[in-house]
């Protein structure tokens, strides 16, 4: 039975462990399905096995076949790496060795994908195959795992458990995984946060949210929402099975993208009355024409409260 399971080893770099906690929030029966199909050789927080050294030696000796290596957290390179030593290996050395043996290498969460917060003030800290926008990272831009795939990047701060488990289950059943230009599975990152947002009508008719704390109004115009520029399935596969940032009145902060966290996360920048950044692929001329017409003809019902005492 065990031999049919995927052997998966999960390492922590510089991390808040939020992707582990997010993983544990997976909706049933996904978590059970994952545990049935995966042999968790080692995980720093949840596996029975506590001795990482023992498992790493067995993998390096060829006694255990490593199917999937998962990294959560950013990695410091060379000299700056004081995280921990394992049999004399630093984390970056360990990652290099294990990723050369694993069939698949998965970067889970924005720290492992792009470096994210731990890399902001540390030049030597990066993600597995990226440092922010720049390709390279710890493994180098040309890295391919034994399966021929580059690092599978499951970005997000944190990543949604269903995106991660979805990828692992696809690997388990030998399905093809299509990646976008940032190495992210298209199945989850072809969408924008905007897709499925409950405020889409307000966006279409350019009805802005006047204040925070209401169901009504779009957050793109005043409150810095990056929904139309951010690739994620946040409003398609809901968080904790129930909600999302925009559904609870928060703007999307773009936490699946390389430039998270940007500055001024709660406000929209304007140039001469037009948002400085437009939804991806939309021309300035097109935006001005469409939004001008939309605003002029916006239906009154969108300017009232959605649920009130009236009829």
């Amino acid at each position, binding site marked *: 039975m065990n031999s049919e399971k995927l052997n998966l080893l999960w390492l922590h770099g510089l991390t808040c462990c939020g992707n582990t906690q997010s993983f544990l929030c997976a909706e049933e029966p996904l978590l059970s399905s994952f545990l049935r199909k995966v042999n968790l050789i080692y995980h720093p927080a949840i*596996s029975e096995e506590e001795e*990482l050294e023992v498992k790493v030696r067995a993998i390096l000796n060829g006694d255990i076949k490593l199917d999937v290596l998962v990294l959560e957290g950013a990695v410091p390179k060379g000299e700056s790496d004081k995280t921990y030593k394992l049999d004399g290996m630093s984390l970056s050395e360990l990652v290099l060795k294990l990723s050369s043996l694993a069939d698949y290498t998965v970067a889970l969460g924005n720290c492992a994908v792009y470096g994210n917060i731990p890399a902001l003030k540390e030049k030597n800290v990066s993600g597995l195959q990226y440092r922010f926008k720049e390709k390279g990272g710890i493994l180098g831009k040309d890295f391919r795992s034994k399966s021929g795939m580059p690092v599978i990047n499951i970005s997000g701060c944190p990543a949604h458990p269903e995106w991660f488990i979805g990828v692992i289950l696809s690997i388990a059943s030998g399905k093809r995984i299509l990646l976008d230009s940032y190495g992210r599975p298209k199945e989850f990152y072809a969408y924008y946060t905007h897709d499925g947002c409950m405020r889409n009508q307000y966006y279409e008719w350019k009805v802005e949210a006047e204040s925070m704390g209401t169901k009504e109004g779009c957050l793109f115009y005043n409150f810095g929402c990056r929904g139309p520029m951010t690739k994620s399935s946040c409003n398609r596969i809901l968080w*904790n099975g129930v*909600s999302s940032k925009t559904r609870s*009145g928060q703007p999307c902060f773009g936490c699946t993208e390389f430039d998270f966290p940007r500055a001024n996360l709660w406000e929209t920048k304007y140039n001469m009355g037009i948002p400085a950044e437009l939804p991806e692929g939309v021309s300035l001329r097109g935006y001005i024409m469409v939004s001008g017409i939309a605003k002029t003809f916006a239906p009154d019902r969108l300017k009232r409260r959605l649920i009130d005492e009236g009829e």
Partner: protein
Amino acid sequence: MKVSKKLLTRLEGEAELKLFWQGEKIKDAYISVPNYRGFERILVGKPVMDALVINPRICGICGHAHLRATVEAIEDSLKRAGYEVTITEKARLFRDITLSLEIIQNHLRWFYLYLMPDVVKLKPSLRERFAPLKGSGWQEGVRASNYATKALATLAGQWPHSSYMVPGGVTCDPTEADINKVEALVERVVDFFEEKLAGIEIQSYMSMSGAKLIREVKGDILSFFEACFEHGLDSVGRSYGRFLTGGTIDPCVVPGTKSKRICKFHPERVYELGNYSFFSKNGRGYTWAKAARYGGVPCETGPLARQLIAKNPRVVSLYKKYGDSVLVRVFARLDEILTLSLSVLDKLRSVDLSQRSCIAPPKEVKSVSGEGIGVVEAARGTLIHKISVSRGKIKFYDVITPTVWNLGPRDDVYLGVAEKAMIGLDSELKAYTVLRSFDVCSVCTSH
């Protein structure tokens, strides 16, 4: 002298424990936290509102407490600059409810995922229920924790890493149906406590204390108690017996300090010492944590401190008999699952949805200069954020986490709280269990 060293896993992050032995007993213990990210440096120069998004990322399991501390520090800075922020009762209740839910999920995951697998090593007959991944307790514990995370996300959008608290209130605008859903989920947590943890009816559980409670409680709490009595965990793990709670979660948590008696908490008496951390380059540093002190002395913070200071009769009665042992420290944490859940249910019933969720502060946050402090209770105890802002930009930020109190290093006079609790023990496994009883979170400790 024999020295043993172990990288401890199955906790939030990783921590290294170095033990010095004299004969069969532990003579000295060093807790070292290896990973440092540097949030306080990263925040300098950032727009103040961005801290609401960055700070939850300090910790994957208590990020919501960091959000609450951040928003309160910002609101305090506005108030001190002369722009008092008004918050509706509804927004205040939501903030308390979601913070309580985060603490509840933490306590459930900690007990089943982090603590009990070590207790199983002391008492192998508990294996079937408490083994990692496979044990029924492990699986049920995760499921129960997700009643809490789902309830939290219904209001806050997601967990981990929501930023739904903003100066002036909260961003969410839920409907009555949402509130009903949250209530139903929290009721499931109470059911889980009754059926699995206490194994007896809630009313009867709540009416008992002391020896009667020990005698009559069943379920997983009983399994834990039995392991404690068999292996002496009712007498080990004791530290200074000085406790501190800075935050408030009405009505179950009130601020105060306690040694022989309960006194008022004065935030200005809190400071950090760095002479045994890597920040001081004197060669004595052994961890990325600093040592937090209150009026010069170390204090324990967390559920045990909270429940003693709030005079929870069950915790007070057990403390009288067993002191700040592993047994009582763990029990206080488990009992909090129930008291917090019941108070969340009360709060849900009193929420008035016709009130506003958010009232914009009287002056735009990005134009204000000033200093503020936010003191809140996180799962592991008192969390303090201090901010200094110059025209909307962060000049200085200081985070004192609960684990800095409990797991921080020594100073020239005192050992750290958890370090002290391990002195004199006769086995490594007991030392690990004592350390775990404080609920180790290394990512918060170093941040």
